[in-house]
């Protein structure tokens, strides 16, 4: 399931809903991303997350379908917020339920790595020196490349 929204989400309720009534599920791995107040050296008072409506939902749906193809998942969930956020706010929730824990771990790790490199969101930070668009981190690209099928990494 995919949700793109400005509102916060209730992690406990979302995770409980993911595994309700399916007693073949042995584990749920989840990742919650937060706004940090350390961005390089500047202190961040708030940020605005811009996205590309339409393409975001399409890409998140494609990525989730790919995870479902690669791992035997009983259920999965991606929630990504946009709009104004302050340090400590939740930005993203990724959760994967599976009969066995390693599938849920790998699928969740895969989803967040792809999401960080492919999903069309952009952070603009409010710093003491004014607004600043956050630069992409090279480390994120390297993390996502781990998951490429061999024939497409050239």
């Amino acid at each position, binding site marked *: 399931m995919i949700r793109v929204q400005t509102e916060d989400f209730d992690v406990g309720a979302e995770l409980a809903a993911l595994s309700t009534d399916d007693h073949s599920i042995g584990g749920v791995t989840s990742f919650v*991303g937060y706004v940090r107040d350390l961005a390089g050296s500047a202190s961040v008072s708030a940020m605005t*997350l*811009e*996205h*590309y409506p*339409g*393409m975001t939902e*399409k*890409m998140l749906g494609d990525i989730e379908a790919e995870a479902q193809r690669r791992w035997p998942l009983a259920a999965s969930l991606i929630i*990504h917020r946009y709009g104004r956020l302050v340090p400590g706010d939740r*930005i*993203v929730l990724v959760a994967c339920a599976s009969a066995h824990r390693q599938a849920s771990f790998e699928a969740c790790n895969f989803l*967040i790595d792809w*999401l*960080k*490199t*492919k*999903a*069309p*969101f*952009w*952070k*603009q930070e409010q710093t003491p020196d004014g607004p600043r*668009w*956050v*630069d*992409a*981190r090279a480390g994120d690209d390297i993390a996502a490349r781990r998951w490429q099928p061999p024939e497409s990494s050239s």
Partner: protein
Amino acid sequence: MKLLYFAWLRTRTGVGEEEIERPEGVETVQDLVEWLRKRGPEFAEAFANMKVVRAAVNQTYVQLEHPLAEGDEIAFFPPVTGG
């Protein structure tokens, strides 16, 4: 064609979204970028270094050689920084 600009491509060009007729000779995304660069200094600056610009046609990532058709939705944006 519908053109969309996100993040600093939007703030530098001053345009978020626009409808244009496909200009003569613009057959690919690369052609469109070259046409946009001639529009003025804001566009020339925003599209100066295509290593930091991503393009999507109809909400799918494409390379600069991707052909364009009437009615396409073309978006330009920097590498993503979500999550």
